[in-house]
């Protein structure tokens, strides 16, 4: 096992609070939802497992009592994740049992998941109708292979054609969330040089402050 402190990006001997904080941030960073449409999702999962192990180990050594809480929480998380998986499973199962077309949909989903794009594309091309489902699958496929412009077009079309379908809506909103999360990332909007006030607003502020002081009988800038 790797050094658990290193895995969590902490110095050795970090406090429980620090460990928890680092853990929460890392879980957010490597959460399966964030890597859902990404070809590296298996590696993200592995990383998360490592983080969970490291956290578990540190907390176990730090405090038995707290460890139990953590364990419960982790189990809850796991259950939640499983439930999510199941609901997704039933989502595709819902197509599953009914007709040939639904079996095809499931098959295409699995092919995309496993990175077999050529085969998935062939099956998609063979589908007779270009309905909402088809657009949705084509969108997912393009997203995975890095064709974001077309992916976006197809996902939007899927939602337009079947506005009530939550699965399609989720996929489209994931794309938008990811776009905005990076565009407005805290590192970029941390402020500093690029967000500093310009000369004009500095002068205006000073002038206002001076006027206010003068109203009250004082003076901030003596020359005006």
């Amino acid at each position, binding site marked *: 096992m790797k050094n658990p402190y290193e895995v969590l990006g902490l110095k050795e001997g970090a406090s429980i609070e620090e460990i928890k904080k680092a853990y929460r941030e890392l879980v957010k960073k490597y959460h399966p939802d964030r890597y859902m449409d990404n070809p590296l999702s298996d590696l993200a999962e592995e990383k998360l497992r490592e983080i969970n192990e490291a956290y578990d180990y540190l907390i176990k050594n730090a405090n038995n009592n707290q460890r139990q809480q953590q364990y419960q929480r982790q189990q809850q998380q796991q259950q939640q994740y499983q439930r999510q998986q199941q609901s997704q499973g039933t989502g595709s199962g819902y197509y599953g049992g009914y007709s040939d077309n639904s079996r095809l949909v499931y098959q295409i989903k699995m092919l995309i998941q496993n990175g077999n794009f050529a085969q998935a594309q062939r099956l998609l091309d063979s589908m007779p109708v270009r309905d909402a489902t088809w657009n949705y699958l084509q969108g997912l496929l393009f997203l995975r292979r890095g064709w974001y412009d077309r992916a976006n077009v197809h996902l939007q079309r899927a939602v337009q054609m079947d506005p009530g379908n939550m699965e399609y809506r989720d996929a489209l909103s994931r794309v938008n969330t990811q776009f905005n999360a990076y565009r407005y990332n805290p*590192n970029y909007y941390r402020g500093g040089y690029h967000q500093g006030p310009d000369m004009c607003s500095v002068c205006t502020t000073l002038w206002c402050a001076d006027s206010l002081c003068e109203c009250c009988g004082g003076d901030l800038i003596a020359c005006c």
Partner: protein
Amino acid sequence: MFGYITPDKPDLKICEFEVFRGYYCGVCKTIAKKAGHRGRIVLSYDCAFLALLIDSLDKAPVSGKHRRCLVHPLNKRYIVDSNFAVEYASDINILLAYYNLKDKWQDEKRLIGPAGMAVLKKGYRRVKRKYPDLVNAVEEELNNLKELEKRNCDSIDEACEPFARLMQSIFLYASDCENIGKVLGWVGYNLGKWIYLLDAYDDIEDNVKSRSYNPLTVQFGYDDGEGVESFRERIREKTEFVLVYSLSELEKAFSLLDIKKNKSILENIIYRGLLIKTRNVLQMGADCHEKSL
């Protein structure tokens, strides 16, 4: 390449900037060794980034010295010692510069092509011997790119594909480990896509004037009556989506890398530098917090 990958300099600490420049100088020095001093002119920031990223996966501390060099004889500068990453990045720089010059000669008959190729010929042959598979993959993608341009491809995703895959191969080759290679490959793919598309947006005006191929003018149907400015305006949002989404995928891959050093410099480039460059090229003035005085 194109030199779009730069850090957000005001947000770097001075020592961080020195290290970044140290990699840049390190690559430059290695190119001089491989292709002669005249070969130095082909140096680009993109390859400095490649050297920085690959070297940061190695846990040995950064090693370098303050030295004088031919280009800056007056001041001593920090130069990173040659290592695997720096060597690799300079090989790639020579390779891509060679193809770029060849392209210039074939397309525009500019004399800088054969002149530069003569300078780089020896270095290029050496790289070709060193990485035969990679060079084959790169040449294949360049041929695909040519073919796309010839048939006036009308999809930006499709047009970006060859260059993105070319970059994917280059990044993937830098690591022996399969998993790391896969992650690096995805960094490269999205970086390539971003570079190609950003360059296309940047070149709209020139391409319209010279009537040469540009995927954006074809996909979004540029019409001479419309004017370049309003066309750029019209496609800005759509282009931004693809550019920023590519960067967000790049960021995800980057998060999975085990970065052993230089983390703050890399994060500066990935979370700030690339976004600022995107906005500058797209001329999203009001939104980019770079108010002028």
